[in-house]
């Protein structure tokens, strides 16, 4: 049987992992990095994904999509408040957000599928085997629509999604495999766009989730925004300039804010410099860790209420928790660690890399599914209550939140009027009393035999499977006949649409691969030409005229190859340039080292 891979499809970064014997491993790309930025750019050369796409954030921001996970399974009204932060254009069609890139619009699952394909290619190149079956992780607090959208993305990418698994529980599997922990643990997962808390009981290889809670719109992106707003205010005060009209600059500010935030996890103070457009000079600023904490305090505070609810639902006190595990890049922030420690009264730990642990856990789950690991079993829960709308617009709960999945509930339906031939059913998810305050999942029509009122008896089974996804079936109790149901999702792609997108994706797959390799090679060539020209300027006097000539010749050859359509030729010329500049790079390195040393001596003297 083909190997099953584990994928962490993240807001900011995505990773793919597999089981190598008894050890889960994340697969690195050509440059050794394990994380693929979850960024997709539509460039003049075609579509780019990952690191090469990230460069376009600041030079083609209107056509570069990041944080698409925030839009999965959602309608436009759900994200109305944050629309202004995104440089690309969003519309809605059939309850699904569409992203405008050039002439075409794409649904979030289609964009996610491009990221998944990138991961698939990466794994295929690394292991030299076909990648077709996967486990994909989602935030534990994702609702049915968001899970379904993730599954759709997998299908569009040509993958068979064998399981959707929750990120914090995936992390617990990776931990459990390594440490063989027993007892009650809390997994605190603050990622790029989402927050989850899960409370688990680990006993003899069983990972039983007791409760989960969270916020699917709270993460590093929101922390960055707090810093961005701070910088924008400073730019306005000092330069009298509003960046909002300049999407590329706005993205530069966002990336600088993110980097500053990351640096402040290790440092107390950091400085930021960024060029303003139209010759308005350079914006310089300093940010201290105290300032960052003041800016983000309220957001970090928002993670605590879900933690308390999760504890309460599990029937536990903070002191009952034996270990607190941190997951997600945002848990590197000292403020986050302090607040978690205050709440649980113990030092949280992160023995495994918080960026990789979810992907590693997905690989563990993949191995369980393929029959490898047999002594570990994850029993997860549904994060939100599931119900139907009843008379008077009230939600009647069928399956309560934190019920172990698979879970099912049966409900009997009948008619109110003689000869009535159908009953409308509206499925909801959420914790509020009124139907309108909860998430509408789907609607369907139950067909009724034309009989006197109250006589028909149709039994509907609502089943939440091990993916946390709802399946609905109906049966006429009198005739024992099963009725097929056409469920219309409120915030999702229809089956037909998914089919069409899969078709499109396959049709273009072969061309895609060729085009992609060419685009990547071209992008890399551009970057190398730019870097080499800069190095030549700096180091011209340090090398011989012959050497300069040789480098220039290799550059010209690369430039010529770049305009041709052969990615292999471009790669070969890139290698030539790298060879020709090898000595120059060394010389420059020595030179800057020497300079640094001299400066140091100078500063030591004074």
């Amino acid at each position, binding site marked *: 049987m083909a190997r099953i891979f584990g994928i962490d499809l993240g807001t900011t970064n995505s990773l793919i992992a597999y089981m190598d014997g008894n050890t889960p491993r994340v697969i690195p790309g050509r440059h050794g990095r394990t994380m693929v930025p979850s960024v997709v750019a539509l460039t003049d050369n075609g579509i780019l994904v990952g690191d090469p796409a990230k460069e376009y954030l600041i030079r083609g921001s209107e056509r570069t999509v990041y944080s698409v996970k925030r839009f999965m399974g959602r309608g436009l009204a759900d994200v109305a408040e944050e629309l202004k932060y995104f440089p690309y254009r969003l519309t809605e069609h059939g309850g699904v957000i569409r992203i405008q890139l050039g002439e075409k619009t794409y649904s979030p699952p289609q964009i996610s599928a491009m990221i998944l394909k990138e991961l698939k290619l990466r794994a295929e190149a690394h292991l030299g085997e076909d990648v077709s079956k996967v486990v994909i992780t989602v935030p534990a607090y994702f609702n049915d629509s968001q899970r379904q959208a993730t599954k759709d993305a997998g299908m569009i990418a040509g993958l068979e999604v064998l399981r959707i698994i929750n990120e914090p529980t995936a992390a617990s599997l990776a931990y459990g495999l390594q440490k063989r922990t027993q007892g009650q643990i809390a997994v605190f997962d603050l990622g790029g766009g989402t927050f989850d808390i899960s409370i688990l009981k680990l006993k003899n290889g069983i990972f*039983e989730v007791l409760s989960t809670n969270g916020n699917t719109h709270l993460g590093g992106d929101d922390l960055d925004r707090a810093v961005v707003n701070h910088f924008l205010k400073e730019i306005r005060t000092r330069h009298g300039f509003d960046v909002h009209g300049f999407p590329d600059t706005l993205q530069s500010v966002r990336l600088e804010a993110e980097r500053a935030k990351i640096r402040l996890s290790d440092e107390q103070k950091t400085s930021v410099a960024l060029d303003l457009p139209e010759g308005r000079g350079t914006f310089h600023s300093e940010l201290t860790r105290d300032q960052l904490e003041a800016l983000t305090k309220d957001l970090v505070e928002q993670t605590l209420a879900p933690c308390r609810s999760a504890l309460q639902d599990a029937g536990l006190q903070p002191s009952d928790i034996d270990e607190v595990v941190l997951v997600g890049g945002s848990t590197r922030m000292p403020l986050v660690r302090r607040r978690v420690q205050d709440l649980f009264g113990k030092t949280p730990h992160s023995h495994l890399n918080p960026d990789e642990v979810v992907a590693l856990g997905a690989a563990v789950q993949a191995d369980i599914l393929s029959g490898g690991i047999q002594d570990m079993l994850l029993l997860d829960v549904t994060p939100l209550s599931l119900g139907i709308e009843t008379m008077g617009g009230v939600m009647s709960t069928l399956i309560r939140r934190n019920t172990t999945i698979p879970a099912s509930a049966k409900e009997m339906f009948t008619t109110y009027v003689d000869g009535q031939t159908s009953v409308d059913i509206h499925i909801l998810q959420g914790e509020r009393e009124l139907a309108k305050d909860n998430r509408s999942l789907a609607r369907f029509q139950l067909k009724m035999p034309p009989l006197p009122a109250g006589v028909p008896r149709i039994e509907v089974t609502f089943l939440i499977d091990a993916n946390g996804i709802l399946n609905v079936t109906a049966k006429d109790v009198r005739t024992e006949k099963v009725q097929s149901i056409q469920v219309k999702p409120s915030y999702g792609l229809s089956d037909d649409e998914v089919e069409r997108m899969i078709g499109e994706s396959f049709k273009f797959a072969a061309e895609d691969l060729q085009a992609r390799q060419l685009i990547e090679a071209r992008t890399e060539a551009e970057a190398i030409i730019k870097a080499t020209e800069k190095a030549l300027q700096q180091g011209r006097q340090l090398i011989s005229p012959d050497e300069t000539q040789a480098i220039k010749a290799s550059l010209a050859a690369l430039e010529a190859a770049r305009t041709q359509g052969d990615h292999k030729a471009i790669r070969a010329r890139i290698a030539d340039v790298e060879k020709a500049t090898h000595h120059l790079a060394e010389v420059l390195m020595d030179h800057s080292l020497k300079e640094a040393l001299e400066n140091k001596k100078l500063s030591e003297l004074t």
Partner: protein
Amino acid sequence: MARSMCWHCQSEVTGEYFCDRCVKVQPLSKDSDYFTCFALPRLLTIDAQTLETKFYELSRAFHPDFFQRKTDAEQAISLDNSALLNTAYRTLKDPIRRAEYLVQLEAGSVKDIRTSPPADLFEEILELQEDLDDFRAACSDDQTSERDRLRAKLMDKREHLERRQQTMESDLRSLFTTWDHLQTQDDRNQAVRAEKDATLKHMREILSNRTYLRNIVNDLTATIG
């Protein structure tokens, strides 16, 4: 749990959950209740550790994770069995839900019983509702001293109701013991049957009163904090 025939090879199934001959997983019978699902007698005292151990053991037997490479039919059985098992565990784990379920199995649904207040608390609850109305009025009119007086009064009452809940729960526990003892007696004895019915009826009444009280207390807490 003898079942007549294996759905797959048609041989007789004598094992608990798998066919002896072809080792295919067997569907938990549609008629099997939560107690038989765990191979437990219909007793109300259940050791939490034993139940958990059995739950984990059955989860290992049925969970869809372990049926990924099996046929569609087996996957469907694994899914249904797991869902039933999870519901059964959730019901039997909690003593109140367990009792409600048993009463329902033995003597119809508890929910069908009236939702009027317990007779001996009738007066008290009527008075409480009036106080609650006055309190809400005092809040909206900003009458601070009246509001504080009523809050103190309501808090006293809540404490009284909560003590009452505790009494109910200890009454239930002793009924559990009675029931479990009766289950060891011969059912053909008319006196035993009569006592069983009386016990069920008593439990049903307490369960229904308890639900009623709990709603009142929740309502109180939501109003006065």
